[in-house]
């Protein structure tokens, strides 16, 4: 097995992670940011699950015919992470909905422009901590 193939999963995980990061940093749309965050999250799934696979192994459900099983521990960690990921994604989406209702926009720039004067005033009074 050549070098690239031996680390392909890690490379792709890095690529997906950076893609997600780029989306979060660059895009102003809040829903797009959450999508980027989801991609980032899936790259972590990949990063955990890939080392768990053993060549010649099989899924960690015991049967008489098999000797080698892949590592079950990453599976346990990621299984719960996926469902928790949905719950947190829903929380983020709920925040987006409230932002849309409060500012009439889900573009980061619009929200900043509308909230900037008030924030500056409070920042001066309260030492930078918005209530």
């Amino acid at each position, binding site marked *: 097995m050549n070098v690239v193939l031996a680390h392909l999963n890690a490379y792709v995980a890095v690529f997906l992670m950076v893609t997600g990061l780029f989306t979060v940093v660059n895009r102003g749309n809040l829903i797009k940011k959450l999508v980027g965050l989801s991609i980032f999250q899936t790259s972590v799934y990949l990063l955990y699950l890939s080392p768990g696979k053993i060549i010649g192994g099989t899924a960690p459900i015991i049967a008489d015919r098999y000797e080698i099983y892949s590592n079950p521990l*990453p599976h346990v960690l990621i299984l719960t992470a996926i469902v*928790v990921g949905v719950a947190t994604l829903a929380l983020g989406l*709920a925040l987006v909905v409230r932002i849309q209702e409060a500012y009439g926009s889900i573009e980061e720039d619009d929200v900043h422009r509308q909230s900037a004067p008030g924030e500056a005033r409070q920042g001066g009074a309260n030492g930078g901590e918005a209530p």
Partner: protein
Amino acid sequence: MTGVTSESIVLFVNTALLLLMCAAALGVVRLRNLFAVVMLGGVYSFLMASLMVALDAVDVGMTETAVGAGISVVLMLSVLGLTKTREAAPRHRPLVALVVSAVVAVSLLYASGDLPPFGDPAAPAHQHVAPEYLARAPVETGAPNIVTAVLASYRGYDTLGETAVILTGGIGVLVLLLGARRRRGGVRQGGAGESPEGTGAPMLRDTVILRVGAKILLPFILLFALYVQFHGDFGPGGGFQAGVAAATGVVLYALVFGVASAQRVAPVRVVLVMVPLGVLIYAGTGLAGMLAGGNYLDYSVLAHDPVHGQHWGIFAVESGVFVTVSGTMLAIFYAFAGRRQAREEEGAGR
């Protein structure tokens, strides 16, 4: 079979799916129509689930299947319905983002050279606890599916925490979206809620084929969710997957027959009780173990035979997970789907 070994096929599948995932991710990032982004996200999730199964993570693949095929698409679309579907053109040069991404990418790629090669049985990750679990779990818990055994028994604290996180997320969504309203009033009221048969409200019920198809499909989804729940000791499955699948079944009903009709099948009040009830069942199982003279979440003392005790404990814990997960998913869907009406009422109340 042909001369190709199954391992090289798996490697090929792995590579192909990874490349397709890269293409799908690039598409997701580049498209500015958020509606299309959501649909491509669905394809991305299909690829991810297939890849997980190819990597022997069947339980994880099943979870990704249950989440990605239905509920996440539905959640994203309900939010798009409340906001807008078009992303504004970027106003900033992507310079900062590119620099940050490049730095992260280079450092991670540099670090990935130290990882053990893919599929290496001698990798450090396989030397420590995993062999222990694989050797002891079938004997101690009687469950052939090691993932279920580790999830519900050995790492029971962890899963209890995760279930609590799901509960917290659900509460957060409900607080944000149900907000100022009285709980029972808002979601159930509304024109379509009184007599969904007669109002002629546009809820896809004009398409006979869809309606009949959904009616046939719904019992299969719910039945299969129960199968996934109770077969979780022996095959891929468990409370998380079954909970999401059952909630998705109700969501299907809501999409075809209207949310108001679905709320007569699964009333809001029941769903809101389910959200904390599951965590209570989980935590209560732990307490039961303490009362029987063991440690918290130690199931061996729940019956005379430790293996039977483990069996009962895993069963109770998985049921708790099912109740919380299905309740939370459904409550979140109701909260998003009922947000328009909630907003009208908040506006009227001011």
